[in-house]
């Protein structure tokens, strides 16, 4: 399949999924034959072609479409969490919300978006930040002090180039 067709037709279809990675492009999409035996015999060639396509696509403006989709999906999920959990005190209850679970599943891609959300609705996002970063940078002396916890996370994000 020609690269132009892949960018125009296939990438938008896959990039609507927030956790899409270019390496998930099925090999058969870059090789003209659908014959199983033929594909099996040319696997090495197929993977090389896919690598070439991915290399070119990483410079492609089609990626902007993907990044925009990630932000849009995150914002939609965050809105659902805020709407449903506005009056909930338990961070565990909030974290178990299906939309919250999906946010955690989006991984490091959305870390800058989470840091930005701390300015609006701080208490919701500490669990997700810790789950994604694998660390809790808040000292014991700041426990419960929401403005200080926000500062701790922002400082950590800046130091580790996660601020976006």
């Amino acid at each position, binding site marked *: 399949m020609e690269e132009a067709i892949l960018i125009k037709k296939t990438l938008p279809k896959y990039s609507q999924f927030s956790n899409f990675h270019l390496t998930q492009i099925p090999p058969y999409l870059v090789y003209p034959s659908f014959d199983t035996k033929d594909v099996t015999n040319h696997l090495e060639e197929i993977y090389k072609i896919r690598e070439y396509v991915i290399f070119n696509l990483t410079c492609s403006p089609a990626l902007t479409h993907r990044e925009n989709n990630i932000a849009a999906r995150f914002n939609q999920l965050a809105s659902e969490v805020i709407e449903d959990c*506005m009056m909930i005190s338990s961070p565990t209850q909030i974290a178990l919300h299906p939309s919250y679970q999906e946010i955690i599943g989006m991984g490091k891609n959305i870390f800058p978006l989470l840091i930005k959300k701390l300015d609006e609705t701080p208490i919701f996002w500490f669990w997700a930040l810790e789950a994604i970063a694998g660390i809790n940078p808040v000292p014991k002396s700041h426990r419960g002090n929401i403005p200080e916890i926000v500062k701790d996370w922002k400082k950590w994000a800046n130091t580790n180039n996660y601020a976006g």
Partner: protein
Amino acid sequence: MPVRDAYIESRFPQLTSYKIKSPIDDKYNCIAFAANDNTKWWWPKAPFYWPPDIPEKEDLDSFVACYKSLGYKECRLNSKFEKGYEKVAIFVDPNGIPTHAAKQDTDVKGFWKSKLGRYIDIEHTLKGISGTYSYGNVGVILKRKVK
């Protein structure tokens, strides 16, 4: 303060009589508010505040221990106003996990006060916020002498 709130009423259909007492504030939650602390978010899990030496477990025993450390004693489900005492009601979900705390209003008999998560705080009856949304029902009530 506005007189009514559509969001609250949609989540608590039994809430017929209530008063809005303060605006949205992210700094404190219901557990803190019931402990007369409007500066921190209390929950037995980092990075939130929990009193020292109290087990950091999300179960009723830990929450009871939390308020006992502030001088409260259990009085089962006795929600009646008693002169000279202040009371706290801890709500639990169907699995017995704490969800919310309310403190008794010492000015208006029969009414309680709650900070609703990060949302506003209201004056209400216990029945008004029971049985619905994510709060469940009252699991235990504790009381202490007014200082």
